[in-house]
């Protein structure tokens, strides 16, 4: 049990480090109060003073740091400079949208990617294998926003099959089912874009992991006793799936930040678009909150992947 505790402690330490670093990162450029004022241009001089005081930006850094840690531990990430809404409210509204995109595309990439990887490893050296490997490398090399642009151009502009962006038709009124159908139509292109962006890694990892296992003694034995090919493959795959499981967990860790560009391109109201707009408007509390949640998600996902490894693979557990 000891290594598990140690891993949790390291993750917690990293989290604390992020918390502290986060505070200083957004103050490198100076006190953010000028940006607060820019976000509220119509206030009088007295109103500005009051607002700055209310946000604690007239305090020393040490007091500001105390307020920041205190707020964060209470799940409150401060108040946006732009919308004057609590940052947590804005993030809670955006998070489900991102989860839909990243969740579905991770699932698709895992399924299709591992299937292609298994196919490639089972037919190593064949033209099919070469084709799969080369095209996954090509997919890996494509900037995801460019994939999105090409998809929008072809499927939305030329063919007119899907909308070009946003989460649903603005201004239209729908029944519940009709709304869901509309959202699904809007989500299709971003999901395909994200899936293409991450599928290459799954193919490569599945292929090399299975190729490794195929060289092990038990596979040779299974072949030697005359098991049919597909049953040999099934046994080998079960032993090779672990890195893919870990990769899925790690991909999900990027749930908050991984879709920034795609969300921006498709105007999809998720965490990525939220942070992009926050950056454009120098809305530090929002940036700070998104940054913290994004890092926390990665840390937690890595920890889960790590623990899953320990749990699922007895060799890792004992070593």
């Amino acid at each position, binding site marked *: 049990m000891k290594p598990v505790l140690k891993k949790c402690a*390291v993750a917690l330490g990293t989290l604390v480090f*992020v918390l502290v670093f986060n505070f200083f990162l957004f103050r490198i450029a100076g006190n953010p109060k000028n940006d607060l004022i820019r976000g509220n241009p119509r206030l009088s001089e007295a109103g500005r003073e009051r607002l700055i005081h209310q946000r604690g930006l007239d305090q020393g850094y040490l007091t500001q740091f105390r307020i920041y840690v205190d707020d964060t531990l209470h799940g409150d990430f401060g108040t946006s400079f732009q919308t004057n809404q609590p940052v947590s409210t804005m993030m809670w509204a955006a998070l489900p949208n991102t989860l839909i995109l990243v969740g579905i595309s991770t699932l698709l990439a895992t399924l299709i990617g591992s299937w292609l990887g298994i196919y490639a490893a089972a037919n190593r050296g064949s033209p099919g294998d070469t084709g799969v490997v080369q095209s996954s490398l090509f997919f890996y090399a494509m900037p995801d926003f460019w994939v999105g642009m090409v998809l929008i151009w072809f499927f939305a502009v030329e063919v007119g099959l899907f909308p070009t962006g946003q989460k649903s038709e603005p201004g239209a009124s729908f029944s519940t089912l009709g709304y869901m159908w509309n959202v699904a139509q809007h989500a299709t292109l971003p999901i395909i874009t994200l899936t293409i962006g991450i599928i290459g890694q799954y193919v490569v990892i599945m292929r090399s992991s299975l190729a490794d296992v195929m060289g092990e003694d038990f596979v040779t034995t299974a072949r030697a006793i005359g098991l049919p090919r597909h049953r040999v493959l099934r046994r080998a795959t079960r032993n090779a799936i672990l890195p893919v499981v870990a990769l899925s967990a790690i991909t999900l860790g990027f749930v908050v930040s*991984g879709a920034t560009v795609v969300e921006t391109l498709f105007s999809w109201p998720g965490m990525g678009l939220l942070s992009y707009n926050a950056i454009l408007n120098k809305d530090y509390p929002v940036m700070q909150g998104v940054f913290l949640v994004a890092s926390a998600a990665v840390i937690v996902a890595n920890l889960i992947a790590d623990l899953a490894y320990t749990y699922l693979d007895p060799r890792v557990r004992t070593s």
Partner: protein
Amino acid sequence: MSVESPTAERAELPAERGFFGRMAAGTAHSLRLLCTSKSGMVGFFILVFFTLVAIFGPLIAPQDPAASSSYSSHILAAPSSAHLLGTEENGRDVLSLLILGTRISMIVGISAALVSAVIGGIIGISAGFFGGWIDNSLTAVDDWFLVIPFLPLAIVLVSLLGPRASDLPFGKLSIVILVIGVTGWAGTSRIIRSQVLSVKERMFVERSHALGASTFWILRKQILPNVLPLIFANTILIIALSILAESTLSFLGLGDITHPSWGTMLDTANESGAVSAGAWWYFIPPGLCICLLVMGFTLVGYAIEEIINPRLRERQ
């Protein structure tokens, strides 16, 4: 994942020819080996092609996009004999922008990867060689950089450092380079550290210790030559990632518009509505070029990795 490399024995042989002599000999040797890998050769030719375009860009380009004469009223015009890849939203020749963007994309990718290599190399070697609390604290920093999501950090850094761009040579371009380099070294240092850990345990290092060699001498003469090939291969792979990172930052409008790269082209294409206007000649070519260049560096990087670590070759 630890990478155990058997290069150690080979790399300690040519000690007499000086640093550059060894580098030249090593490069020639690598090139010969590269020819044995088909995909490595493909990658190598891609790189040669784009390098030539980058060097001779101003001579090949039909127009100088910076000159005011290049602007015209033919906005988003389809490809024709006058403009092989059509025109963009200001009526400028897309092919010329593409050719001159090669230079920027390559310079940013390579320089950022060099920044990563230097930081990752120094941190990885120090952590692996000195061990103890130095290793622990450096690994903690490394862990942190590994879990930090790249894009938010890069975006925050670019927007924070942006106002100071004028103090630096090449303005905002150097900020983009620095930010990509500073956020991209964690993987490198992890690999270098494990290599140093394994080199440190080898007999020849122990012998030098016993003979009273100084720490610095061992680092310079025995550790460094044995990790340099690995740093080299890794840097080539990081170049590919840095080029992608640059295109992403530029696409989000954080690049240097005075030095337009392929990513900047995609950004302006998107902003000017080229996608909904169906002007495919404007946004397809830059994306394809990014793709090809990234593939080129990745293929060559993999090939070099296989040369350094023959165990990978057996697995293929």
